[in-house]
């Protein structure tokens, strides 16, 4: 059994670590001059973060998640709304579950 006081201390430590990651990026960038090259770096990193989350997660998941992601991508091209695309992808994933995928 984990001691209650130790648990509270640990959560506070993890809170500080997480806050450091949340404010760290802006803090670092406050010392960097935003040149066109830095701007291009940030622009491509903006999308690359999400790509790096989505692709490995999707490939490691079950086929219904592949369907959800594929459907969301197609729906985004068709509608231009990320929210609509998310709802269509999620609905299809639930539907695919019915077929044991």
């Amino acid at each position, binding site marked *: 059994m984990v001691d209650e006081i130790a648990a509270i201390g640990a959560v506070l430590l993890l809170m500080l670590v997480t806050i450091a990651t949340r404010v760290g990026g802006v803090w670092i960038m406050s010392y960097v001059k935003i040149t066109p090259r830095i701007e291009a770096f940030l622009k491509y990193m903006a999308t690359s973060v*999400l790509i790096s989350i989505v692709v490995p997660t999707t490939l490691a998941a079950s086929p219904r998640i592949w369907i959800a992601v594929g459907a969301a991508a197609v729906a985004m091209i068709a509608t231009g709304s990320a929210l609509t695309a998310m709802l269509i992808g999620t609905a299809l*994933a639930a539907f695919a579950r019915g077929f044991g995928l």
Partner: protein
Amino acid sequence: MSGDTSDSNRSKRPCFTANGVWRGSVEIAPIAAFVIPFGIAFGVAASAKGVPAEISLFMSIAIYAGASQFAALDLWHAPLPLATLALTVLAVNARHILLGAVLAPWLLQVPIMRRLAALLLLSDANYAQAMSARDRGEMDAGILFGSGLTMWITWIIGTAIGVLAGSLLGDLSRFGFDAVMVAFFAAVVVGQWKGSSDLFPWIAATAVALIGAHLLPTGWHIIAGALTGGIIGAWRHGR
């Protein structure tokens, strides 16, 4: 909303207004609703680990970063391995540093207290939401704080339901909720496509993230893929 703030989102300069906070908190609601099942899953997993309800809830309030909280649960045993816990949470959450860097040109132009408020509630989902909003010309950083607030509250509510009644609900993945975030992020990525010049940086990011997912410790493949995409993009398109 009063009439004189209704045009705030049309202004060309970065700002942070109450109107923006309100719009952000409302616009993210359809996504935030799906955070509740994830919060429930965390509450259930924490209870199964023997973590007391009030500590689980405190984790969700104070840390508010789902993946890292699940990772911390794996290490939650007496005596608590503080250094390992801190390093694991740092690794899983290090991507926030990159999200913050991307938002910096925007956030550095708003007053520091508001900037910090927006950053404290930063998550993948409200970052993705802010990215697609900014593509539509959004300049009000208040949306980031508003959407963060909604996400934070739903994460806490979900956790509370999970620790109190989670075992009665069973496996929520049967509703397809586990597809929500990947589907949303995939859609935002597709929306960011500006033409064939994006192809090479995107492929490079994908390749490095995939290889990294097999070779690197948890979380670092996201950093590796993101930096690769950024560097290749800057190299090819920066002047």
